[in-house]
């Protein structure tokens, strides 16, 4: 009798144990909050996945962009990171070199691979292995205010930086509260706002010899152009007080003639300033005809220490299907990374998006180097000193290049 009881108890224990195992099929996902739609989107995806795969639990952690890297750092150092996480692809090299991101090739077949545009998948490939999938993709183009440009006597947006400077001066001359070129001088992507001109003048962030390209004629010319526009009043005053969002706000208020930013401004204008007569054009070319837009992808990675890699992959597989990608891409105002999504009418027939996708062949991505964030900060500091007139163009850029070379180990 006692024996049977013992067996029964053991069986009961076994059942509970098995039950808890089934529930324990948990995948935690850290996602960046791109907009108020991000959280609900991933919650919906998790719910759909759990419904299709009973006994699984997808936990979504939504983190604001500004603190994403901080959260990942603290989680990883404490060993409490999630199974999947969205990261800026420019950070990926650190994740790969420290063995934190898991290679995904064993899960990917050719059919899966062919869902993506190669240009967006390739930034996540390192040493021949794929470490991330492009969850968000974006490029930059020039927005211009048709009314302001027309009033200033220009029928078409400028196609070179020289024309842009002239157009900006003419627009600024229209009135006291109107500025020609919205120039970003603060916080994230202040460096990129300079690279648009820098690339057009033929510059490269990292030279062929592996050193910084900031101490070259191209960088001097681009910085002189921006500084002369600031001094001439062709930009909004006090550029170092303006983040990208601040400049976008001026543009939405119809107070800035031209600015360069991402596709999401189109979506914002549609909602907040539907009457604004704007157009989207290529980023102007330099004297040699070169031009470059900034391409950005964010990747979703799988952690090497994940206990549920197969299940995590299954979830990834689902959110990269056409249906879920279309929902995400349209909600957030990103560029489609799936070919089938891009072919959908909502994307293929959107005139603004067309301009952006046409720019992709000339898109430049942040170089795959360690310490990218520090290099960006050094560049921003030098630019702010130039914009404020606290340092000369050559002096500031040479100093920044020397510091960057030290970060690069050159």
């Amino acid at each position, binding site marked *: 009798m006692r024996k049977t009881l013992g067996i029964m108890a053991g069986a009961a224990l076994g059942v509970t144990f098995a039950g808890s195992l089934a529930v324990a099929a948990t995948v935690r996902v850290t996602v960046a909050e791109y907009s108020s739609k991000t959280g609900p989107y991933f919650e919906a995806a998790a719910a759909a996945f759990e419904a299709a795969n009973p006994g699984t639990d997808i936990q979504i952690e939504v983190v604001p962009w500004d603190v994403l890297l901080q959260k990942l750092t603290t989680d990883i*150092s404490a060993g409490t990171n999630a199974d999947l996480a969205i990261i800026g692809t420019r950070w990926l090299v*650190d994740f790969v070199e420290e063995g934190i991101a898991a290679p995904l090739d064993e899960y990917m077949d050719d059919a899966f691979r062919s869902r993506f545009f190669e240009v967006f998948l390739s930034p996540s490939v390192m040493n021949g292995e794929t470490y991330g999938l492009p969850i968000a993709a974006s490029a930059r183009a020039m927005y211009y205010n048709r009314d302001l440009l027309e009033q200033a006597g220009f029928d078409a947006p400028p196609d070179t930086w020289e024309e842009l400077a002239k157009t900006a001066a003419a627009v600024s001359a229209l009135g006291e509260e109107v500025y020609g070129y919205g120039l970003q001088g*603060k916080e994230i992507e202040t460096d990129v706002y300079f690279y648009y001109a820098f690339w057009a003048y033929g510059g490269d962030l990292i030279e062929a010899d592996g050193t910084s390209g900031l101490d070259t004629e191209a960088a001097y010319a681009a910085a002189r152009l921006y500084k002369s526009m600031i001094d001439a009043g062709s930009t909004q*005053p006090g550029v*170092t*007080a303006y983040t990208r969002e601040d400049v976008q706000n*001026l543009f939405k208020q119809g107070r800035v003639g031209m600015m360069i930013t991402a596709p999401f401004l189109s979506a914002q204008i549609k909602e907040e300033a539907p009457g604004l007569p704007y157009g989207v054009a290529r980023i102007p070319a330099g004297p040699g005809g070169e031009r470059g837009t900034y391409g950005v992808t964010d990747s979703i990675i799988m952690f090497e220490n994940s206990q549920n890699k197969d299940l995590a992959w299954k979830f990834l597989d689902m959110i990269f299907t056409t249906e879920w990608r279309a929902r995400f891409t349209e909600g957030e105002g990103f560029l489609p990374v799936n070919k089938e999504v891009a072919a959908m009418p909502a994307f293929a027939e959107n005139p603004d998006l067309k301009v952006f996708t046409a720019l992709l062949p000339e898109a430049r991505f942040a170089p795959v180097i360690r310490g990218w*964030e*520090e290099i960006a900060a050094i560049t921003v500091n030098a630019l702010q000193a130039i914009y404020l007139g606290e340092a000369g163009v050559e002096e500031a850029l040479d100093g920044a290049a020397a510091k960057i070379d030290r970060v690069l180990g050159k």
Partner: protein
Amino acid sequence: MRRSSPLVPYLLVLPGFLLAAFIILWPLVQLGTIALSEVNRFGQLRGFAGLANFAAILEDPEFLAALWRTVIWTVGIVFGALLLSFPVALVLHQDFYGRGLARVIVMLPWAISITMTAIVWRWALNGESGLLNSGLRTLGLLDTNIQWLAQATTAFPVQILIGILVTVPFTVTIFLGGLSSIPEDLYEAATLEGASAFQAFREITFPLMLPFLNIAVVLNTIYVFNSFPIIWATTQGGPANSTDILVTYLYKLGFAYGKLGEASALSLIMFALLLMFTLLYVRLTARRGEDVA
């Protein structure tokens, strides 16, 4: 009466000490370990580094600049708040109609998180669409918009002013507590002896308030020295690091540049600076207290 064992006081202190040790000493040990190690971007230790992290901090020109700015920031806010809070507390201590409401209004900013306050200020300080410029223009005090956050010469003083504003409620609370601890009969006696209001303030209120002034100085210094949200929300220490104080510089080192070893070293340096200040200040004021007694 039976004398209790000399161990008893220590035993009684022990639980509190253990709790404090868990909260303070354990992280300190962790920080020390990281500061003496080679650390990768994700805080994983990769070997012993000796004092290399400390040396890197001390060699960084940004460190000295940020340290100097931290001194200005702390002294400016702590003494600004003292100067503003003392009269406010004296007024609020008087019995007048609507005192309850006045106290609530002075205390109200305390109920809002500093980050929220700082973000509201960031909007108010916006050069083109900010409330401050439009208010000043309406009053006729300004002809052209000032871009408050575009350069340190305007941004840093404004940040210190915001710091003073958010420090006042706490300081007033300390002072009100101090004022109510002064017995009324001292003033009655002084009035009988023919003392003027100013004499009463100088001979009674001020000396008896000294301990509370000291508490306000020490606590505010600790809070303000480590205060992150105001500067981060308005300028992130920019432009060109010109409004960085040690904490914002620390945050950049640790979480933007991924130099967790140097960041740990810096936070230990900051801890040591604060500890030294507090010990020194308490020592000085305690000695002065003995002299007076």
